[in-house]
């Protein structure tokens, strides 16, 4: 662990920036209630980087959108609290929440070809983000926009400011989305699989740069991904999500080297590495359960090799020394 992340972990203990407790975001559909997020606890310190890992449909993106208050009907936060820097984000009024969005808490989306408005110039999209939160002149806002592009390593920023999104490559667009996220110097960025749609080489660059920028500016980051390998080199801590719940949380190295939960173990075993070269990769047996019809008790029970009769009752998170937490009756201790 490097010094900065040790400091980050230390501050985290003093006063968390974000504290989510028992968050439940459900969607009332015709087929029934989809419990996309069903009791999530997250604690994040200032400047800390958290990797939120899970398969598609595990509720990780919905967790991100819940923090920003961007859940649209039929979805609704039905229970739990989201405390951000002293604000209660769940009960907060819409206008107050708008003032936090993009200013204190920013988000980067998955597909850069869809996040920028196709009919607006890049400068417009950056400037409006500044002016939505601060009474500054357009000239001043344009200067900040230019600085933000320079910050994310975009060459010839003046030209890019005048471009339309379709004139730029996917990697370039994602950098611009990152510049938009950084422009108002937020305290927290939620990045929802921002590199999934990009080339592998660009992926690495962007991950590296975002990490550097967050460290430099002291911005906390929640990096949502399905790829454990991506967050291994990025995050201070990892939370693993399964079927709307966080099943395991811990310091990155701990989670990867000594996973407690059988699902985490399964995820790690299915990542290709030198040790597994030439052999068939491990596969978690069974399918992700439908969120409409979760099995009774632990949602992972039916796919689990360690399942016991106890698992018919849903386990509560068990706190362990070293900031670890696991939701399992039979953790690998």
């Amino acid at each position, binding site marked *: 662990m490097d010094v900065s992340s040790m400091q980050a972990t230390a501050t985290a203990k003093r006063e968390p920036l974000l504290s989510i407790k028992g968050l439940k975001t459900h969607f009332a559909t015709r087929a029934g209630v989809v419990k996309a997020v069903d009791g999530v606890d997250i604690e994040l310190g200032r400047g800390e980087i958290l990797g939120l890992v899970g398969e598609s449909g595990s509720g990780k993106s919905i967790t991100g959108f819940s923090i*920003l208050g*961007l859940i649209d009907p039929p979805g609704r936060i039905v229970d739990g609290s989201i405390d951000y820097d002293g604000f209660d984000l769940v009960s907060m009024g819409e206008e107050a929440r*708008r*003032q*936090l*969005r*993009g*200013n204190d808490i*920013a*988000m980067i*989306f998955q*597909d850069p070809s*869809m*996040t*920028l*408005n*196709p*009919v*607006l*110039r890049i400068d417009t999209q950056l400037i*409006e*983000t500044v002016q*939505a*939160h601060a009474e500054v002149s357009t000239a001043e806002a344009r200067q900040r926009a230019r600085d933000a592009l320079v910050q994310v390593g975009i060459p010839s920023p003046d030209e890019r400011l005048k471009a*339309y999104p*379709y*004139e730029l490559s996917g990697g370039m667009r994602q950098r611009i*989305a990152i510049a*938009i996220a950084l422009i108002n110097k937020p305290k927290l960025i939620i990045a929802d699989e921002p590199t999934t749609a990009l080339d592998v080489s660009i992926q690495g660059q962007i991950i590296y740069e975002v990490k550097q920028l967050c460290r430099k500016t002291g911005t906390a980051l929640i990096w949502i991904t399905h790829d454990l390998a991506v967050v291994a080199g990025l995050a201070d801590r990892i939370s693993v999500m399964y079927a709307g719940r966080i099943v395991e949380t811990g310091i990155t190295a701990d989670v990867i080297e000594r996973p407690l939960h059988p699902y985490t173990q399964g995820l790690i075993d299915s990542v290709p590495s030198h040790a597994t070269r030439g052999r068939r990769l491990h596969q978690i047996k069974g399918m992700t359960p439908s969120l409409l019809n979760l099995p009774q008790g632990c949602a992972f029970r039916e796919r689990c090799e360690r399942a016991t009769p106890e698992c018919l009752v849903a386990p509560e998170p068990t706190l362990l020394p070293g900031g670890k937490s696991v939701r399992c009756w039979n953790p690998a201790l």
Partner: protein
Amino acid sequence: MPVFIINRLFQAFGVILVMSVLVFVGLYLIGDPTSMLVSPEATEIERQALRKALGLDQSIWVQYLTFLGNAAQGDFGRSFLTGQPALQLIIERMPATVELVIVAMTFSVLVGVPLGILAGLRPKAPSSKAIMTGSILGFSLPNFWIGLMLIMLFAVYLGVLPASARGETVSVGPVALSILTIDGWQHLALPALTLGLAKAALMIRVTRAATREVLPMDYIKFARAKGLRPSRILNVHLLKNILIPIITVAGLEFGQAIAFAVVTESVFSWPGMGKLLIDSIITLDRPVVVAYLIMMVFFLVILNLVVDILYMAIDPSAREKVRD
């Protein structure tokens, strides 16, 4: 860009050529205009003389080529009925129609687009359902019926608006306009409403569909994540993206209304071009019909060109496609 415009104009001439042949042959097959022009007691010799005077004794192809030759010099022939140049007849009637259609289209866009956005933003709200039901009525009720009902309500029962004809006009150069006088507006109100209601209903549906399509887009969610004010998201991020289908439909409807506002003009005895076209078709007044249709094709091509240029103003990637 200039290449693009020139291409379009060439296409226009092609369309005009094909259409003029069709109209020529069509009207030739329908019947002999001289039977409309001479008295029933006229002798065959008198009829022959008239045919010769109008050039109808020639074969259809000679007539057509003569027409083409003259048209190339800007002469579209004279009305069989009145002897006035066909073009002049049409141009005299044009301001009345254009005025009526512009007022009707403005009404339909100003009413249809906001209501459509409203219905698109909250599709399940009772107000949205009311708007959509209204729009179904708006374009399924026949035009003439709406016109008659409006006359009955406003002209007969309430007696607040005149039922027919154009109001007082003011000459602006060679053009007589009635939108500059109060009397003119009073006369315009009912026909414009009749024409505009069905168009507004269509605009509502187009705008609603476009809104429903754009709203779930990531860039709208991203705009919200940036903390933009709802008014900015609506007026810039949403509106700019739904403008393309709106402009397409508004452009088509505008052209259609200019060329064929016949029903409304008939109901309200509005002295516009639509009325002229119907009268000319009935009397088989071929020069007027042909000249009218050629002008309309030309007008529609120009209108489409304007719509395409508007696209380019809105959609930056459309600009790229014509940059050659």
